């Protein structure tokens, strides 16, 4: 697996954010049971930025988010968030530091109705979206408030999963493929929402397959392959890097 490996410092250097980093991940390795998935991920996210992780299926993007969230059994390396070392913290502590996570598989609860699902995560900070704001964003939810969470359609569940963490007031959001399975009209809304959150000072770490969507929002990109960060660049450098990117992603 020596292909495409780059020195970590080189990558990070190419895309170091201007200010101090809110999140710093250094030499992160992670395992699922016996299988070694992440082989030294290093990157950082500055406060107020939108950063996107790109990469093929199975590259390790989701695993990276889960490691930051503290829900991977075995992980090593350093993860600093807001001046706290969270590499060994439990996920409830990490969440209470103000990290919001919207998982890829949505994680809607069958035994809770839509309202309970929405209200489930405790508010960790003030300043989250109000219910009204959420219903303007996702009118479907308002209509189905009383129904069982998993009875929602695939896309509705995705909306619910996003709405849920917007309520908590966490200032750092990790969204794993938030547009998957959504109709174009909703994707556009989510795009607008993320832009607005950013303007309000939220920091967002995004994982996306939908490159077109990501490119309209992100300040910087990292490319993940075989559990390593193999490249990174700012949005302004996007055009110049297009060919490289195509070969990374196999477009």
């Amino acid at each position, binding site marked *: 697996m020596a292909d495409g490996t780059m020195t970590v410092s080189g990558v990070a250097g190419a895309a170091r954010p201007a200010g101090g980093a809110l999140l710093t991940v250094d030499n992160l390795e992670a395992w699922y049971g016996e*299988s070694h*998935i992440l082989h030294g991920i290093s990157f950082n996210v500055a406060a107020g930025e939108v950063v996107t992780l790109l990469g093929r299926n*199975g590259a390790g993007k989701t695993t990276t988010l889960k490691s930051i969230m503290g829900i991977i059994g075995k992980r090593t390396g350093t993860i600093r968030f807001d001046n706290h070392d969270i590499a060994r913290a439990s996920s409830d502590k990490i969440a209470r530091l103000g990290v919001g996570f919207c998982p890829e598989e949505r994680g809607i609860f069958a035994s809770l109705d839509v309202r309970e699902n929405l209200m489930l995560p405790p508010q960790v900070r003030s300043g989250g979206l109000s219910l009204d704001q959420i219903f303007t964003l996702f009118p479907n939810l308002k209509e189905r408030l009383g129904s069982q969470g998993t009875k929602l359609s695939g896309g509705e569940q995705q909306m619910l999963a996003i709405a849920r963490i917007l309520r908590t007031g966490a200032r750092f959001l990790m969204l794993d493929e938030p547009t998957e399975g959504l109709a174009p009209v909703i994707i556009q809304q989510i795009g607008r929402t993320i832009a607005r959150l950013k303007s309000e000072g939220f920091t967002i770490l995004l994982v996306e397959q939908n490159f077109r969507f990501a490119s309209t929002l992100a300040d910087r990109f990292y490319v993940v392959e*075989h559990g390593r960060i193999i490249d990174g660049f700012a949005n302004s450098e996007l055009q110049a890097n297009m060919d490289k990117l195509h070969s990374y992603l196999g477009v």
Partner: protein
Amino acid sequence: MPALTDGTARTANGRAIGDEMIAFILMTALLAIVPMTGIYPFFVMQGLCFALLACAFNLLLGYGGLLSFGHAMFLGTSGYVSAHALKVWGLPPELGIVAGVVAAAVLSVVTGVVAIRRQGIYFAMITLALAQLLYFIYLQTPFTHGEDGIQGVPQGKMFGVLDLSHPDTLYYVVLGGFLFGFLVIYRAINSPFGEVLKSIRENEQRAISLGYKTDQYKLLAYILSGTLAGFAGSLKVLVAQNASLTDVHWTMSGEIVLMTLVGGLGTVFGPVVGAFAIIAMQQYLAGFGQWVTVIQGAIFVVCVLTFRRGVVGEIAHYFKRSL
């Protein structure tokens, strides 16, 4: 572009069959020489009956993914029927066995039709309920003689020639019965039917969408399992010469699960090892008096906490073999 599967990719069948063959020959040889070793044959015979029972149970749970918490009902039913047939009707042993097995088969069809329609924990509970019902029936019907049980069942001459009251003869008859049952189960697991069963366990919705009427397959597995469990019950009557309520009580169903679990769920030889381990424990711990149940409980706990694959399962896992 191969993904991250390299290295972990396992070959499908390959040497598994070879390993199982060696283990089978080893097991048969060991069992065949028992009467010559001075090992107490009665104990081994009892072990064989329970081993067959556990194997039958394993067919359903380990390969069909269905946890029956009422398997004692087959053991007990065939036991009572065989004992009654031998003692009261005076049938020869081979017909006594047939009577017991037929009774178990009928019972498994009747209860199967009811139970198989439910899944998971509901299946476990409904089998438990059916077994409890049957327990109460057996407790009260006269032919089982309540808590006294049917005692002193004559062993007789099998096919008119094999005198089963002779320990060695009885031993080889029981061994033969066990091996027959074991091979039937082994074949069923490795048959076209077994493949379908496995896929149903893996993803039932998908199997349905491929056009399988999964209930029918589960029912067949259930009937096979129940009938073979009944066979074990009939053999046991010949060995123990009695049939009693303990064989239909729910704790017996629990013991069957325990045997399978200790030996290794979903392994071919696990239930055999497990059955012998548990029987030996009950017999030889009897001298510890009050502590028997405590020790047995502790084994459950230890097994679940540290030994989840069971004895054979752990060994197979360690050597990366299938046993």
